[in-house]
């Protein structure tokens, strides 16, 4: 009852910790590297910058770092969704700027309450994304072109909305608090404890159901490893943030979005369909999946998350201006997703790569600011890291193909 007849040529992991490690290295050497390069990269970055400037790994600087990446990471979650589908969305930067500007103008010039203005900004993002998605599916115009037109067009609308005002300052606490407040000591630990409890409970429930059904469960070592990484990660993060000002609300929003969309992509029908369309759209269509509906939904989510990121950025800057959402916003968000390990070729990746990649880009930029390097150097180094990340993806893809896992 437990399994299908096993192929005798198949290599199985030996039980125990040694077997788990062995299997891990075999998969790595065959190109199943997942998030390994980005984790190693983060460690390297931390070591290098800490040795050059001892302020890098202080709670104060790490808190600044996570605040700096909140907007990028949020936009990048949407990028991961679009990349999983095997498409691209180049309009996210412009959409983030436009939605933040509309929110600000509604709030400051027409006096709409902060919460409603934020809602209007998000709704505008959803509308823009839906429109672009429908355009891609209805007229079969490549998403590259539709969203490139969006990049130009929405930037034009941003300039139009701001008129000759230029910069509009935000003062409404309902908006500025989004990136401006920190959770008190007790509240941070409370949320952390609840998160750990939910994680352990869902893990236990899944394990029990599989055992009850007579299905294979992972090795004990793998399970313990996962628990140590997640629980340890949550505790260490809260301890560090608490040593400074506490857990920033913006970081909680980003983490909430990452966890939520990670669940959606892995455990729901919709998420499964996203992966199916990204893997083989024709197969998905023949299996009765509404391929166009999935595409429109993902473009809608992508633009909504871009709007969310734009609003966080405006809240942090306390203003919007004519360059909101332009410059490196778009490229950083896409680079973060790719550096984090999501494939540009569709169907492979996880939402967590948005957070990991944003951490890499954010810490490089933050570290170089600490060293007071010129922005010329910053651009060159970020470019080099992006190239390295994509090269690792391409090379490991070849390794997977050689090992028959592509």
């Amino acid at each position, binding site marked *: *009852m437990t*399994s*299908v*007849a*096993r*192929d005798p040529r*198949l290599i199985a992991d030996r039980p125990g910790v040694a077997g788990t490690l062995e299997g891990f290295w075999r998969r790595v050497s065959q190109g199943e590297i997942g998030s390994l390069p980005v984790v190693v990269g983060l460690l390297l970055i931390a070591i290098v910058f800490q040795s050059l400037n001892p302020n890098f790994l202080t709670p104060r600087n790490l808190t600044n770092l996570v605040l700096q990446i909140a907007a990028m990471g949020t936009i990048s979650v949407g990028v991961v969704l679009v990349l999983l589908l095997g498409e691209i969305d180049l309009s996210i930067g412009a959409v983030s700027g436009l939605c933040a500007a509309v929110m600000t103008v509604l709030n400051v010039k027409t006096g709409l309450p902060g919460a409603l203005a934020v809602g209007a900004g998000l709704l505008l993002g959803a509308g823009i994304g839906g429109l672009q998605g429908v355009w891609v599916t209805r007229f079969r115009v490549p998403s590259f072109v539709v969203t490139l037109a969006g990049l130009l067009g929405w930037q034009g609308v941003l300039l139009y909305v701001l008129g000759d005002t230029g910069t509009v300052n935000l003062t409404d606490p309902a908006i500025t608090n989004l990136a401006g407040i920190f959770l008190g000591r007790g509240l941070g630990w409370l949320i952390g404890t609840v998160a750990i409890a939910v994680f352990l409970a869902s893990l236990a429930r899944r394990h029990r*159901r*599989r055992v009850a*059904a*007579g*299905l*294979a469960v992972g090795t004990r070592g793998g399970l313990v490893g996962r628990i140590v990484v997640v629980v340890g990660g949550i505790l260490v993060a809260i301890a560090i943030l608490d040593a400074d000002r506490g857990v920033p609300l913006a970081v909680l929003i980003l983490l909430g979005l990452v966890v939520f969309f990670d669940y959606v992509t892995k*455990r*729901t*029908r919709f998420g*499964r369909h996203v*992966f*199916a369309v*990204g*893997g*083989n759209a*024709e*197969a*998905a269509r*023949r*299996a*009765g*999946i509404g391929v166009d509906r999935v595409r429109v939904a993902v473009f809608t989510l992508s633009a909504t998350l871009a709007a969310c990121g734009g609003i966080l950025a405006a809240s942090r800057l306390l203003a919007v201006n004519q360059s909101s959402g332009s410059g490196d916003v778009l490229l950083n968000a896409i680079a973060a997703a790719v550096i984090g390990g999501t494939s540009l070729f569709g*169907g*492979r990746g996880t939402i967590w790569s948005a957070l990991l990649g944003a951490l890499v880009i954010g810490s490089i930029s933050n570290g170089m600011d600490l060293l007071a390097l010129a922005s010329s150097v910053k651009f060159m180094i970020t470019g080099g890291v992006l190239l390295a990340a994509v090269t690792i993806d391409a090379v490991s893809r070849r390794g*997977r193909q050689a090992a*028959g*896992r*592509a």
Partner: protein
Amino acid sequence: MAQPGRAPLLELRGIRKRFGAVQALYDVDFEVYAGEVVGLVGDNGAGKSSLIKAIAGIYATDSGEFRFEGRQVTIGGPNDTARLGISTVYQDLALCDNLDVVANLFLGREEARPLVPGVVEELDEVAMEQRAVEVLRDLAVRIPSVRTPIAALSGGQRQSVAVARSVMWNSKVVLLDEPTAALGVAQTRQVLDLIKRLRGQGLGVVVISHNLADVFEVCDRIVVLRLGRRAGNFDVRGASREQIVAAITGAEFGTPGREGTA
């Protein structure tokens, strides 16, 4: 091999299909009985694919009768034939390489259970995995694990997964388009064994193939198409390879087996 007293599972009479100036199918009759494997052979352009697509409901036929389990039915599209229990495995298999075997077997028909009743549903991986293991074991399909991504499977294993998917939803007739075309010796064996098991489970199986050795090994009956017409219907027990080749190429032998048993 007419089986007196038993109606064919699927029966087509006088099927005609025309593409512009080409008469792709001309008065073609075709039938499959339950528990029978029919080989559909013919040269390139003989009309094999057109006939399969007509059966699958992808092409609307110009004229002809379509009976399923003795009842006359009208076919408006692929969904109609799927509802009857006719499924097709095309050469490209239509699998998602990045997803595992379970996900592919349930593609588009994922099972979910309520997480928050009435509001949120999550995939029921346990139920799907159990059913997948059951289906693959019934068909004696050998794969490393049901959680292996399709990309890591051999050609024969992929073909087996595609066939398993097509029959696990109460299919009665399965159409296989060149199931052994790209496979090695051992993998071909795996797929031929699978076809025999489908017959053992009482399904009607139609196999398109260019490989006469495979056809002779696995089929009960061979239907030959030539230039859009049915050029022969042979019981494999009484037919020789020369007769089949003659029917495919149109060489005249005047052999008694030709249309003899139809």
